[in-house]
């Protein structure tokens, strides 16, 4: 691939501005993983069905496997790598770890970010609201219950830390 086939993309990811040259057909998921080294965001189905690739864009859940980076210039992208405050895990991260809500850990980044978007919008959600908000993110390990309980534990501790 020659440099002429690449386009310049400016992205704001986890609060940092970055500028990279990438082929224009690369998805946000691929750019995050391959060009920015943010491998916490995962491939799952390549169809926008499983949400393994979920990130937050301007605070809302967003499927990075269906998004083109050029469309996201000037928007705020958050990946799992940006969720902790320095060395302090986000309360959701701590609750997921403590309650065993991450078994294999593969859906965990997207699950956490989706839960964060929910709590940022609705700080005290009901169990039903948690289920609805997380229903797009598939998990094959947990049966979801420990995930619901972890979100509720984070809520009870004050999820904004």
């Amino acid at each position: 691939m020659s440099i002429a086939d690449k386009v310049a993309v400016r992205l704001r990811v986890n609060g940092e501005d970055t500028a990279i040259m990438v082929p224009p057909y690369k998805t946000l998921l691929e750019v995050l993983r391959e060009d920015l080294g943010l491998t916490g965001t995962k491939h799952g189905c390549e169809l926008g069905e499983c949400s393994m690739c979920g990130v937050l864009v301007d605070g809302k859940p967003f499927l990075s496997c269906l998004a083109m980076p050029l469309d996201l210039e000037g928007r705020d992208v958050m990946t799992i790598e940006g969720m902790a405050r320095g060395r302090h895990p986000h309360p959701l991260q701590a609750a997921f770890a403590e309650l065993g809500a991450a078994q294999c850990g593969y859906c965990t980044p997207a699950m956490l970010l989706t839960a964060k978007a929910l709590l940022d919008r609705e700080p005290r959600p009901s169990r039903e609201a948690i289920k609805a908000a997380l229903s797009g993110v598939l998990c094959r390990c947990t049966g979801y219950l420990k995930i619901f309980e972890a979100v509720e534990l984070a809520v009870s501790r004050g999820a904004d830390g």
Partner: protein
Amino acid sequence: MAEAFSVVGKPLTKPDAFGKVSGQVKFADDLSLPRMLYGRLLRSPYPHARVLHVDTSRARKLPGVLAVLTGDDLPVKFGILPVSQDEEALAREKVRYVGDPIAAVAATDEWIADEALDLIDVEFTELPHFMSIQEALAGQGEPIHGLSNVHKAVALEFGDTDAAIRAAEHVREDIVFFEGNTHLPMEQHAAVAQYAADGKLTLWTSSQTPHYVHRALGKVLDLPMSRIRVIATPNGGGFGGKSDIFAHELVAAKLAIATARPVKITLTREEVFYAHRGRHPVLMKVKTGFTRGGQITAMQFQSFLDGGGYGSYGVASTYYTGALQATTYAIPRYRFEGVRLFTNKPPCGPKRGHGTPQPRFALEIHFDKVAEELGLDPVELRRRNLPSPDSQTVNWLRITSCGLKDCINKVVEGSRFLERRTSMPPGRGLGFAVSSYLSGAGTAIYWNDMPHSEVQLKLDRNGGVLVLCGAIDIGQGSDHILAAIVAEVLGVALDDIQLTTADTDLTPIDLGSYSSRVTFMAGNAAKAAAETVRDRLFRVVARSLHCDADELTARDHRIYRSDRPAEGLTFAQAVQLAEAESGVVTGSGSYTPPKLAGPYKGSGVGPSPAYSYSAAVVEVDCDLKTGEVKVPEVWIAHDIGRAINPMLVIGQVEGSVYMALGEALMEEQTFRLGLHKFPSLLEYKSPTALEAPVMHTYLVETIDREGPFGAKEAGQGPLLPVIPAVANAIYNALHVRIDEIPITPEKVLKALNDREKRVGPKSVPAYTFPPLIKADVPQAWKGK
């Protein structure tokens, strides 16, 4: 009084938890090496065809392509079982399912690799294909392998079942079908291979069985195993789907050798459906004789397995469809006949419960019907046929601890099953079922006398403990089990433990994360290793304190006199003392299961050092208009032996219930015109957070005498009773029998409109099983 344990039995955070919640844990596809190439596989578009010619010349010319492989580059056949070496990394003469790999490329990026696949020209001659048990047996056309589509047929009998059934006061026969489904791990399989300048090959792979991959690489690549290093990366879900040897692993390695550059192959989601090795579709016939009082007198069980295109674990799967009937119920006379057929579908293999959810489904709905015919409630029928602790089954399986009775009591009381089942509101129903499962296969996949699991420890002079073990964490928490057991024995904290696992250069063997074996076997090895090291520390501390070693306790980072706790050394001081005396403090431990196979051919599948037990009650809410079945609530009890970490055990139980509900109600891997109907997540439906029921989990502790601290398995057994409990609950709600999995809305509506109020197979194919191997009956069953 102090608690008996300081780590074991506590719901502690597992060592890899923060790596997972931070996204820092590296799965195979997250790895990237300098100058890495990307590999892709060309797969067959035909279900059954002869490969006449593969022309790679156009692909080789594409700029960015560094290597192209065909079957001739990897001609050595392999397979996970020594008796089924029937796979080629890239098919040479024939393809046997849509998705069977034929050729491979390595290129500088994935797009070029994909383009190169389009430039490979393959000439095929299509052959008639076989897409079902019936078609495979009818055998119209060239068989898939050899002279017949029959892969394996077995016939065993323990006592005279015909006579016992003739003499029975009540006999019932049922025919049941369980459609295939797949593991659907969220992580696609991936492998990265590197061939260093010194000729050393390293493969990082998302595998549950790195030791078996190591062996297969040595065989197929014709390299000494000492020149190959396999590192299993944390699996993003396994469920049995990553416990085979896969073409992409061998091909990535070969491409790395061919190009002398690192090569990564990550399967697409569609390819994961073709890799499969999932649940076999199984057609079953079960016939059981009872006394009027509901005691089993004999059982005859037949299974027909639709195996897909290759052997894989199929010989074991076949035996497993007949093995655990008698560990769940006391059966005095038993006959099992099973046959596995090759079909032109992705190969089936082990999925959670390996070969036992299908017969479990058949048996438990069969018993539900028998109970009704005998005028007994379904719980009472089970209670009259419970296996005894410390007993031997008629097919020679040794039972140690058995908590089935307690499991039954927990769920029946918790759900108020007996009170509520006769007065459920319209469309609502309660169903009940029980099960048992292995705590690890008692025999290794290849014949050998060596341990099944080994652990080494190395202590550093500040009191840190390095644990080395071949076991791979697939999300089930095996890292935690290793750390918790070592920490408990040495009296240190989880934070003091460092783990290096699943690296064939660094870690001693563990056979893999399959057959629910890791807690039991690696746990026992870890315990033995820690006790070896502890004994050495005790010897030096005893000398220093002028007491006997057996007067010492290791706890809270100290080794001290049990009767005078103030007298002691810190753990680090003890290590320093030992190191000063005789050098680096290390120790190892191994676990070899007892030899338990019975005196008959085929007795190698089924024995386990211990069996777990489960019971479930499921509540359903059925929509009579749409046929949709919802599950609002589940009660599940599991005999875990002892929970090393109850939080992780409950996680395994809840995950099993979830996976069972998916299989019971929606998941199926089906085909049309030789093609997988839905190799994508758009169409392959699995339960979401919205379908998650309320679950009541009860852990029953029977403290098994051979398990580490008494522990047994948790990862697979709790799936088993849930599927039939759903079917039984639907009968309770609607008075229809769905004798077929999955129970889709269409089937429910069809059954409601059916004269017999049933959906399910009506017959099994005419097939002559081999002559019965008439095995002797253990002494305890003679005359019964």
